[in-house]
């Protein structure tokens, strides 16, 4: 592969496996008809991995589904042909098509929970698929299913077969869906955003297995995604969809070097315009922040949630300490269940801390009652993850933005003027004042949420995954907006995110959280340049950058974590990463780890790092 360069395999004259010609799918909606897929053409050759890219609403999921002759709800395939193994799928009788699905073409959908029957054991569902395709008896199918699950990285597969879908994490459920899709050993696998909503380490695990499996069996994969990182790291070719048709098909190498269509060029340019490199939006180096006054001091913050009908507790946050200087952005990085959101909520008294100290400008927030705290709320604000959910759907944008102004002494006219000023500050047109949140795009809504947080001129804002509901384009805009506001108003941010790319742009210092504990903390540049803790290393290695150098599939060692995050109710007795860590020793099993300072402003929770072993 290295001889061919990072572009992966080229057009090697192989016979096409599937050819879609002029496919058109229309939906009935409100009496009218909406054409979602309009003259779709695509060729997939045996054994290659094709990325199907496109903005939301470009029809990529509908097109991928239509390749198997299926549509959702009111959709109808109006015209076109899909040649697969010498026959037009769309012209086959339904019974023949049904046999083809699973055995010829496997399908992996976006939401694994919806793809599994909620009332049947996952084992029964998988065994049924196996029997349907191979005509073997139940016991043979069970053994084969267990083997397949083992290959997909599921520990103790026999026990997992007896589970119901609701007992599985989303990542585990998706593994079962993948297992069901590959059980028939299809020649083509259609995967519709198979890892959306999954954590990056799990995403890397699953995509690695998918890629390895496809290469081992020589089956082709159509990977529907809007993530250029996935395209760059796993695909051989890429097809870009816009307004219901394929507007560009290229090898991955050519695509990243010379994108043809304007959509491709725009999105690549945007992702490459590192806001960190562009003059005024450059984050100041941590050293410049160093001597600014400390705004917020968090010491041994602790938060547990009681479990219903049980004496046990969920440990959400475990002795987290950090400090935030004025004008600084501190990043809390972690995957789901790491407690990062809980930390942010506890700081603002949206949850009561179980223990620890929070000093904000000298005020001990942890021992203040809501009534005493209220005047301070003007100085600390929050931007929530889901902008739509965080606004009263009946209110106008002006009302939404001016709500925190109730904390100020401003007159009515001054408030109206302030709202105008804020809308300008977040670059939204003033006409939006009278609109309801529903009328805005996701990006505009999140700008409104930022304007609302800025309204009482706070010193400190918690940004709780502010870009996770946004498309890649609006994410870049949002990050430069946040950076500009920080430079203009000197506001400090606690930036909570699972997305390392956004953290790299915005933060000065970061703490990496795993199961409620800080596993590594330090200056952003240092951590990104040389991660020390095995978890941080795996997290950074799992992040899929939209670059062709050092593709994940080309690496000799793909640093990754095994298995799933353990339940926060039954935590391991030693290191919390024990069992998943690629660098573990016997000592890690029983020895709880402490956060150890290894340099000025750098601490790691791993004895092997502390003793200089890694």
């Amino acid at each position, binding site marked *: 592969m290295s001889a061919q360069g990072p572009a992966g395999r080229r057009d090697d004259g192989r016979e096409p496996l599937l050819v879609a010609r002029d496919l058109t799918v229309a939906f009935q909606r409100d009496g009218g008809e909406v054409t979602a897929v309009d003259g779709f053409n695509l060729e997939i050759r045996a054994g290659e991995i094709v990325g199907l890219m496109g903005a939301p609403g470009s029809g990529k999921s509908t097109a991928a589904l239509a390749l198997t002759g299926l549509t959702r709800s009111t959709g109808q395939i109006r015209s076109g042909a899909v040649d697969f193994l010498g026959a037009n799928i769309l012209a086959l009788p339904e019974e023949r098509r049904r046999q083809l699905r699973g055995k010829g073409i496997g399908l992996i959908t976006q939401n694994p929970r919806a793809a599994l029957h909620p009332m049947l054991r996952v084992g029964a569902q998988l065994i049924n698929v196996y029997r349907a395709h191979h005509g073997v008896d139940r016991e043979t199918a069970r053994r084969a299913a267990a083997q397949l699950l083992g290959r997909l990285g599921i520990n103790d597969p026999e026990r997992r077969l007896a589970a119901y879908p609701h007992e599985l994490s989303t990542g585990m459920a998706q593994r079962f869906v993948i297992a069901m899709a590959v059980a028939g050993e299809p020649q083509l696998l259609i995967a519709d955003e198979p890892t959306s909503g999954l954590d990056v380490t799990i995403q890397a695990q699953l995509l690695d297995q998918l890629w390895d499996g496809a290469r081992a069996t020589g089956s082709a994969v159509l990977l529907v995604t809007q993530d250029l990182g996935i395209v760059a790291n796993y695909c051989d070719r890429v097809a870009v969809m816009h307004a219901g048709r394929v507007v560009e098909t290229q090898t991955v190498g050519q695509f990243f070097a010379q994108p043809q269509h304007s959509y491709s060029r725009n999105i690549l340019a945007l992702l490459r315009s590192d806001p960190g490199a562009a003059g005024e939006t450059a984050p100041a180096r941590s050293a410049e922040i160093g001597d600014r006054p400390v705004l917020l001091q968090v010491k041994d913050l602790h938060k547990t949630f009681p479990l219903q009908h049980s004496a046990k507790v969920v440990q959400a946050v475990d002795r987290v300490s950090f400090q935030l200087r004025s004008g600084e952005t501190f990043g809390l990085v972690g995957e789901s269940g790491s407690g990062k959101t809980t930390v942010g909520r506890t700081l603002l008294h949206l949850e009561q801390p179980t223990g620890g100290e929070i000093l904000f400008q000298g005020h001990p927030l942890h021992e203040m009652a809501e009534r005493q705290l209220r005047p301070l709320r003007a100085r600390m604000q929050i931007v929530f993850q889901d902008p739509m959910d965080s606004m009263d759907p009946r209110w106008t944008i002006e009302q939404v933005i001016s709500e925190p102004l109730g*904390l100020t002494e401003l007159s009515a006219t001054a408030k109206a003027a302030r709202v105008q000023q804020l809308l300008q500050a977040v670059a939204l047109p003033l006409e939006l004042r009278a609109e309801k949140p529903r009328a805005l795009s996701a990006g505009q809504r999140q700008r409104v949420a930022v304007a609302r947080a800025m309204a009482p001129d706070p010193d400190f804002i918690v940004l709780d995954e502010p870009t996770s509901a946004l498309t890649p384009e609006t994410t870049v805009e949002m990050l430069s907006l946040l950076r500009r506001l920080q430079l203009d108003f000197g506001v400090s941010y606690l930036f909570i995110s699972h997305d390392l790319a956004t953290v790299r742009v915005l933060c000065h210092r970061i703490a990496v959280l795993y199961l409620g504990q800080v596993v590594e903390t330090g200056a952003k540049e240092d951590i990104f340049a040389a991660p020390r803790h095995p978890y941080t290393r795996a997290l950074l290695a799992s992040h899929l950058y939209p670059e062709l150098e050092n593709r994940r599939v080309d690496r000799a060692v793909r640093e990754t974590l095994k298995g799933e995050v353990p339940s926060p109710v039954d935590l391991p007795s030693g290191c919390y990463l024990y069992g998943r860590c690629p660098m573990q020793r016997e000592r890690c099993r029983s020895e709880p780890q402490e956060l150890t300072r290894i340099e000025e402003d750098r601490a790691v929770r791993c004895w092997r790092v502390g003793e200089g072993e890694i």
Partner: protein
Amino acid sequence: MVSTRSGASVSSRLTAVRSVAVYVGQRARHDGLFLFGLLVALTVLFLALFGELLAPYDPREATANVGMPPPPLKDWPQLAYRALTGQLDAAPHWFGTDFYGLDVFSRVISAPRTDVSIALGGALVSLLLGTGLGLVAGFYRNWATGLLVRASDVLQSFPVFITAMVLVALSGRHTGNIVLALCLVYTPIFLRLTRAEVMGQARHGYVEAARAAGVRPWIIAWRHVLPNSLVPALIQLSVTIGFAIILTAGLSFVGAGVQPPTPEWGLMISQGAGDLNYGWWWPSVFPGLAISITVLGFAALGHVLEEAFR
């Protein structure tokens, strides 16, 4: 803030009213069910206000004609023409007269004043009480509000009709008592509905956002949670008005409602039931039809409201 908010909301309310009017107009043109419900509701409300003034005879005074059947349908156009041009000495008895010589038509169109005012009163008071208590019970969840919900469960577990009958029997057959009986029956329904919705709405991010903005909890409940929780209760209101009319009429039918000779549909059916022995169907069938059409109309309206809000 008060003046900007009210200033903004007056204009937004005006546009809201206009858009509702436009919606109603469009919907009525295309949707027969909605048109039917709307016409029934408007007619019944109109009759509640002016029915007695339009009645050709005093609904409480007997005429000399006893047990007179309604004129055959084919004569109605001619009769109407002659009545309107003043060629008749006395207005025709469109729906006939009953055993006492009371004009059935006059009584049918006068009855909404009693039926609708009792049903509307009962339903509206239940709505206010139920949503208020539901808001409190859903927003502040502690032992006291828990007790409230259990108490309303106990009330709901009695058969509707028996509860109302016992209540009226104990406290007398006054209009106020009948309204009270309706409230006891319908308040728990609104309480449950609103509480469930409030509990759902309180999980939304805008409640947290308001807390982070320093808004006091009871203001959050009033300003954000209540307006967003009203839809199920408003849909239920229309259906409840229909059922409250049946219940009011039913109470009169068994003798636990208003006193004769008040014009009231249930009472008329009850008294007309005896007339069936003579083969006189008209004293009971016409008020029966009136009840059926009214209840169907309000139910249709509730159905349409439900679709409109979804």
